[in-house]
């Protein structure tokens, strides 16, 4: 398992994808902290209660803030309402599609499915495509050429990362993909992770969404007002900043091409509002190591296994303080990354699997 001596090829059908399969880095057996079956069963238990409560708060706040924005439309008083509406629409849906896609948020599966579809629409992620891309993300987390969800590639494109905070490029790509899918076209890269029998569903969803956006644009033109687009579509741009802010911290600046989530994922302590928006995905090492554990049980899982994990990053700000210098250094040396130090109580990294990557890490 060696790092490429030349630039990384992130194409899902490219050189590094082929190499990852050949050298066993893809679909490998990943490190897991020892947790007894009894404890894991308790942590994995599903419940509708927490997600129903959180969804009621989320939808209630979404409707109230949207109504406030409409009521005050035309005056500056609409700004704080759309600020809240945008974050609930364009950021909190990132964690809702994610958790409901895993099927862990609710015990009742149809509830997961309903919220999954709603959240996918808002965050502009085709529910079929992204279910399969996220499956691959969990199989091959930050494996170059295999993981379709690497948000900051090396060397980092910092302009692209910054534009993510206002959702411009994401929305552009989402709309392009939607129209392409609606035309019946599944790309070669998508075909690498979406099974053939599922591809028709992706096309059908894209056509439904295209119709919804067309109706929204038509309503805006008919009424001569941006207001319909402020409620549907544009919040994915003006409300994206929070999900990008916390999302970049998940893996940014850490190792790639390793098979230990302690090396390539980051747990960050956050304020309660961000944790509500993010549905506890700040416990990201824990989530990747044990994706069966629902979001509401992640703090308990964290308490149980933190002795075996790198020290959590103490805040969002601290996360950026450690991540940005790594990004800047990667502009000159893309092999550079931040190696997460383990506490003395942890089982060591399996250096035989990661020696080349670790050799390139920060001291």
């Amino acid at each position, binding site marked *: 398992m060696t790092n490429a001596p030349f630039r990384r090829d992130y194409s899902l059908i490219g050189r590094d994808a082929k190499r990852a399969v050949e050298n066993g880095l893809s679909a490998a057996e990943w490190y897991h902290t020892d947790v007894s079956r009894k404890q894991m069963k308790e942590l994995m238990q599903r419940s509708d209660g927490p997600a129903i409560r959180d969804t009621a708060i989320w939808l209630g706040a979404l409707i109230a803030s949207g109504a406030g924005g409409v009521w005050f439309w035309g005056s500056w008083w609409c700004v704080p309402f759309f600020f809240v509406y945008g974050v609930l629409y364009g950021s909190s849906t990132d964690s809702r599609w994610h958790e409901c896609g895993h*099927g862990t948020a609710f015990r009742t599966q149809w509830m997961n499915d309903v919220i999954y579809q709603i959240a996918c629409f808002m965050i502009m992620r085709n529910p079929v495509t992204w279910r399969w891309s996220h499956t691959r993300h969990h*199989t091959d987390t930050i494996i170059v050429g295999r993981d379709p969800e690497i948000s900051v590639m090396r060397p980092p494109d910092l302009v692209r990362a910054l534009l993510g905070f206002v959702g411009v490029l994401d929305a552009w790509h989402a709309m392009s993909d939607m129209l392409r899918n609606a035309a019946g076209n599944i790309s070669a890269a998508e075909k690498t992770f979406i099974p053939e029998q599922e591809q028709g569903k992706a096309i059908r969803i894209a056509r439904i969404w295209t119709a919804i956006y067309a109706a929204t644009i038509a309503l805006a033109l008919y009424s001569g007002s941006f207001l319909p687009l402020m409620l549907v579509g544009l919040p994915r741009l003006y409300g994206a900043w929070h999900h990008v802010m916390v999302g970049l911290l998940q893996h940014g600046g850490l190792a790639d091409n390793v098979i230990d989530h302690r090396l390539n994922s980051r747990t960050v302590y956050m304020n309660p509002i961000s944790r509500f928006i993010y549905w506890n995905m700040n416990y990201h090492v824990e989530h990747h190591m044990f994706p069966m554990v629902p979001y509401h049980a992640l703090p308990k899982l964290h308490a149980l296994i933190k002795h075996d994990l790198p020290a959590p990053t103490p805040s969002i700000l601290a996360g950026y303080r450690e991540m940005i210098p790594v990004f800047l250094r990667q502009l000159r040396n893309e092999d550079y990354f931040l190696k997460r130090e383990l506490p003395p109580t942890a089982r060591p990294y399996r250096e035989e699997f990661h020696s080349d990557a670790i050799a390139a890490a920060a001291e």
Partner: protein
Amino acid sequence: MNDWVEACAADDIDEEDVMRFDHDGRTFAIYRSAADEYFATDGLCTHEKVHLADGLVMDDIIECPKHNGRFNYKTGAARGAPVCVNLKTYRVKVDAGKVLVQVG
């Protein structure tokens, strides 16, 4: 085709739980339902060959620990993405406190 093999003691598995059983180079998952019935399937998820015995049993469902793929462990039926291929099931009986699986 009468290859009954002792997998474990009936009490080795908690109610509404699953246990791994390896035999002759193959791996199986043995289930005990909430109604105290026993079932057996292939032990690896048909999606990416992960051991189902590390997963979660809920009602008639076994959920894979890696990608949350779901199967009905009584019938082996795949219950949605990312699993598309059914699990093979095996006959099970309990005799003198032992769980026997017909592995043939």
